[in-house]
């Protein structure tokens, strides 16, 4: 089958992918945007909280507003949208195989930007596989996208900023939060205001604690919480776990990209340089796939990947690239040092190790 041709293939139509699409399409490149979802915006769509630390050109807004804004700014350009399409693998000549669920067809891109985002990590305890136990992201999707109240009485395991957001949103739709269970000695969230808000509405934050066991027939009905020597039972029908997030790596792995490990960026991360280019010359990356960060930072990484691809394809002047890169890196630094300094430091360490990946040549035995 003859491959469809495109200048730039962007895999993932979340915030980073959409930002990259704008940078490339607005400079006259032919862009193909693929996402398995039928709608654009990725995880932004269910974010009802106001996003802090957006790039300076943006007004403060919620996730779904940002998603709409990012989609709207693409309206002026001829972009090939492959929404509801999945990337399923690669051909020997490097073309990507995409399915519309009827067929699989090859597409050949001069440059590819992979912005496949992050997945949530599980936390295991006895009977964590019972229905009613889910990730905080899944609970948020049920609530904000499907408008289903995911339970009546809940515990949340983990205390990141995201967990605080979800705790507040669940409370708002009438879910009673029996506690936020955190195994460490301190709250993980950086946003002190949110933590204050959570405390204010009476949600107990339990430090040094964990779920000892869940119980239930067919669905979760109670959990044992352990804090030090104390063990007690809470009647709940919803357990939301926040095991942190990790970059989704499947596409990088199949492309043969190398990986390094940075705990603060979510564990294994594709190796990339200052230009958000992987060690496969034609593959760039953006967003959470390049290390878990805040929404604002994700947008900036998308813009950076976008203008670097424009540079590689000669769609932008050298001066404009340098200027753009410099100001975007400054913006990224400003956002990440403000919101999470450790992520900024880890990102820089990761980039320094570009030439020395921990995992490479994964298919050579």
């Amino acid at each position: 089958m003859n491959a469809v041709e495109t200048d730039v293939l962007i895999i993932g139509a979340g915030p980073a992918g959409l930002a990259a699409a704008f940078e490339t399409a607005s400079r006259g490149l032919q862009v193909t945007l693929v996402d398995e979802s039928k709608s654009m915006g990725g995880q932004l769509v269910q974010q009802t909280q106001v996003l802090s630390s957006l790039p300076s050109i943006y007004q403060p807004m919620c996730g779904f507003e940002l998603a709409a804004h990012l989609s709207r700014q693409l309206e002026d350009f001829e972009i090939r949208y492959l929404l509801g399409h999945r990337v399923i693998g690669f051909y020997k000549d490097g073309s990507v195989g995409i399915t519309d669920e009827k067929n699989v067809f090859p597409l050949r891109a001069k440059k590819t930007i992979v912005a496949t985002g992050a997945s949530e990590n599980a936390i295991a305890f006895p009977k964590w596989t019972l229905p009613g136990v889910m990730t905080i992201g899944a609970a948020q999707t049920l609530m904000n996208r499907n408008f289903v109240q995911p339970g009546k009485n809940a515990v949340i395991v983990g205390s990141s900023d995201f967990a605080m957001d979800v705790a507040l949103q669940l409370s708002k739709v009438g879910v009673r939060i029996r506690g936020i269970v955190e195994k460490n000695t301190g709250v993980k969230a950086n946003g002190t205001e949110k933590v204050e808000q959570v405390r204010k509405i009476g949600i107990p934050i339990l430090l040094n604690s964990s779920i000892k066991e869940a119980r239930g027939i067919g669905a979760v009905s109670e959990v044992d919480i352990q804090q030090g020597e104390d063990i007690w039972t809470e009647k709940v029908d919803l357990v939301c776990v926040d095991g942190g997030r990790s970059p989704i790596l499947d596409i990088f792995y199949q492309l043969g990209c190398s990986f390094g490990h940075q705990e603060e960026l979510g564990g294994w991360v594709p190796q990339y340089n200052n230009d958000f280019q992987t060690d496969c010359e034609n593959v760039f990356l953006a967003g959470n796939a390049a290390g878990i960060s805040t929404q604002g930072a994700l947008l900036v990484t998308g813009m950076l990947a976008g203008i670097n691809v424009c540079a590689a394809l000669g769609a932008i002047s050298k001066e404009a690239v340098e200027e753009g890169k410099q100001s975007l890196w400054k913006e990224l630094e400003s956002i990440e040092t403000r919101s999470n300094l450790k992520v900024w430091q880890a990102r820089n360490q990761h980039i320094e190790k570009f030439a020395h990946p921990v995992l490479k040549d994964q298919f050579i035995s």
Partner: protein
Amino acid sequence: MDKSTIICRCEEISLEEIVEVIANGARTFDDIKRLTRCGMGPCQSKICNCLVAGVIHEQTGMEFHQIPLPRMRMPISPIKLETLATNSTTFSSVKSVLDEVELEDGKVK
């Protein structure tokens, strides 16, 4: 964590089974997968990957950067054979067993 805790929900593999093969010398996710089927189900280790890394870390003291990623596979998510299939009826790399049987003077070589 209790020994009976399920680590791989697709294949229902418990912590105990994973600890046992680590004691037997398994060091990577893929070693554990081949010996227990952990991670071989529909999710293809997307869910249990981080849990298993945690178990390897606890049992062996290996740091997380020393525990390689599980091998990831195509198709990137499950797909029907009929969707994968093309209209082509010619085979270049794929053979049948009788292709390998050669005749010479009317006899099997």
